[in-house]
C-alpha cells in the first residue's frame, strides 16, 4: 500500500510522428548497406579468383616428384622445385636472424629510451630524424633495396651473388616493417606495468626486459611473422642479390634461387608456365600455413602470459 502523500501518475499517450522523412532515411540506409556489402563481396571475390586460378593452374604439375627433385634447367623448365624450397628456408632464417634483433632492438630504443631525450636538443632531433627515416624507408620500393644491396654487398663488399648479400639486402627491406610493428606493440604496453616495475627498485633495462618486452611479445612475434611472409614472397630484392643458380647453396656465400625467384625465371625464361603456377601455388600454401601456425602460437603465448 502506498502512502497518501505521493503518487506517480500516468501521462496520456500523446506522442506523434514528428519526422516526415522516415521512409526516405530507411531507404538510404538500405542502399548504403547494399553498396558496402557489394564492396565486401567484390574484395573477397578478387582474392578468391586469384588464388583459385593459381592453384587450379598449378595443381596439375604438383606431385611428390615436383616437390622432391631439383630443377634441371632448360627451356622447358625441367625438374621440380626441391632446392628452391630449401634455399627459401635458408634465406628466411638468415634474413630474419639479421633483421629481427636489429629491428626489435631499434624499436625498444625508440620507445623505451629515446622518449627521455625530450628537451635534450640535438639528441631529440636525431631521434626525430631516425623515426622519420623509418617511416620513409617503409615506403621505398623493394627494387631500390635490391639495387642498394647489389651495389654495397654484392659489389663493394665483394660478397658476390650470395645468401649473405641477399639476406643483408632483405634485412634492410624488413627493418622498417619490424621496427614499426614492434614499436606499436611496445607502445601498447600500459604505463602502469613500467611504473609498477620501476617502483620495485629495478633498473630501466630490468623493467624493459622483465615486463615490457614479455607483454609486447605477441605483437613483436606478429611483426616477425609478417616479415617471414615478406621474405618468402619478395622477388625484386633477391633478383639482383641472390643470383639465380638452382643448385643447393653450400655456404652463406653461395648464390641460390628462392621459390619466388624460380617462379619468375620459369614464367619469363621458359615455356613451363604451368610449373610456374605450381610453384606459385606452393608459395601461397606455405605463406598461409606460416600465418596459421604463428597466429596459433602467438595466441597461445598471449593466453599464457595474460590469460585466465
Amino acid at each position: 500500500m502506498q502512502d497518501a502523500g505521493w503518487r506517480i501518475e500516468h501521462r496520456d499517450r500523446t506522442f506523434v510522428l514528428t519526422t516526415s522523412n522516415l521512409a526516405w532515411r530507411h531507404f538510404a540506409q538500405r542502399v548504403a548497406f547494399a553498396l558496402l556489402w557489394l564492396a565486401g563481396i567484390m574484395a573477397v571475390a578478387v582474392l578468391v579468383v586469384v588464388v583459385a586460378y593459381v592453384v587450379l593452374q598449378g595443381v596439375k604439375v604438383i606431385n611428390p616428384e615436383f616437390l622432391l627433385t631439383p630443377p634441371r634447367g632448360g627451356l622447358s623448365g625441367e625438374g621440380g622445385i626441391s632446392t628452391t624450397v630449401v634455399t627459401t628456408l635458408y634465406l628466411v632464417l638468415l634474413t630474419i636472424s639479421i633483421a629481427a634483433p636489429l629491428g626489435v632492438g631499434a624499436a625498444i630504443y625508440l620507445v623505451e629510451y629515446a622518449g627521455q631525450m625530450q628537451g635534450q636538443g640535438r639528441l631529440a632531433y636525431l631521434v626525430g630524424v631516425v623515426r622519420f627515416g623509418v617511416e620513409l624507408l617503409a615506403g621505398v620500393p623493394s627494387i631500390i633495396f635490391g639495387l642498394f644491396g647489389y651495389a654495397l654487398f654484392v659489389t663493394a663488399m665483394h660478397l658476390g651473388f650470395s645468401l649473405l648479400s641477399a639476406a643483408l639486402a632483405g634485412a634492410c627491406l624488413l627493418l622498417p616493417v619490424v621496427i614499426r610493428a614492434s614499436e606499436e606493440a611496445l607502445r601498447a604496453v600500459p604505463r602502469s606495468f613500467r611504473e609498477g616495475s620501476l617502483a620495485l627498485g629495478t633498473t630501466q633495462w630490468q623493467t624493459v626486459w622483465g615486463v615490457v618486452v614479455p607483454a609486447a611479445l605477441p605483437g613483436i612475434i606478429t611483426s616477425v611473422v609478417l616479415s617471414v611472409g615478406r621474405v618468402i614472397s619478395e622477388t625484386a630484392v633477391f633478383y639482383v642479390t641472390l643470383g639465380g643458380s638452382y643448385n643447393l647453396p653450400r655456404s652463406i656465400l653461395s648464390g641460390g634461387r628462392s621459390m619466388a625467384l624460380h617462379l619468375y625465371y620459369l614464367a619469363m625464361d621458359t615455356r613451363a608456365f604451368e610449373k610456374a603456377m605450381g610453384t606459385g601455388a606452393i608459395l601461397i600454401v606455405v605463406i598461409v600455413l606460416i600465418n596459421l601456425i604463428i597466429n596459433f602460437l602467438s595466441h597461445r603465448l598471449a593466453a599464457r602470459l595474460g590469460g585466465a
Partner: protein
Amino acid sequence: MESVVKLEVQDYHLFYGDFRALRGISVQIPAHHITAIIGPSGCGKSTFLRTFNRMNDLIPGVRVEGQATLDGQDIFEVDVVELRRLVGMVFQRPNPFPKSIFDNVAYGPRAHGVHERARLAGIVERSLRDAALWDEVKDDLGKSALALSGGQQQRLCIARALAVEPQVILMDEPASALDPIATLRIEELIQTLKQKYTIVIVTHNMQQAARASDYTAFLMMDEERAGYLVEYGPTRDIFTNPRHKQTEDYITGRFG
C-alpha cells in the same frame, strides 16, 4: 611528535616546466605510523606522494626545489634504484604484471639478485601472508595474476611491494578502484602493516583518512593552481579540531 622522523620535506617546490605544481611544503612523516594525504582533486596529492620514491623523475621537464630526506639522507643524492627498493609503492589501479601470482611477487627479489628457488618460495609465501592473500591463492600460485579479482590484485601488488623488504610504503588511493568490501580488507591490511613499515597514503575518501590514519596532511590549491599544505597533524586533531577554516570546510564536505 613522539616518534622517529622517517621522511621529511622542507620548503619543497615542484615544477612541470614553468608551472608550479607544489609550493613550499614542509612535512615530517613519522616511522611506523600511517600518514594520510587528503585534499581536493588536482591539488597535487599524488605528485607529492611520488616525491618520496622519485617517480616524478620519469616525467620530462619536472624540476624540484627544497629538501626531501629519508632517514635524514637527501633522497636526491641516493641512487634512485636503491631508493625505490626502500620506498615501495602501491598504485591507484591494481597493476599486476601479466605473469603468474608467484612470478609477480618474485619479480622484485629476482631483480635484486635472489634466484635460489627455496629462498624465493619463502619470500613469496611471507609476502603473500603479510598481504593477507596467502590463504586465497596458496594452491594456485602458478595461475595468472590477471585472473584474480580487483581486490585480490591490489593485495597482490602490496605483496609484490613487500617482497623487496621496503621500509616505507606509499599508497596512491589504493582502494579507489575497489568495491566497499575489498576496500575494508585493504584498510585492515594497512593497519597491520604499520608495525613493520611506515605508510603514506593518498586518499579521496575522508572517512578512510579519519578511521585508518594516525596523521593527516591536508593539501589545497592556491589561486595559481599550485598545491600547498594547509594543515598537518594527528588525524584526531585534524578531524575534530581543525585549526583552519578551509580544513573544516573540506572535511565536513562543504567543498572538494
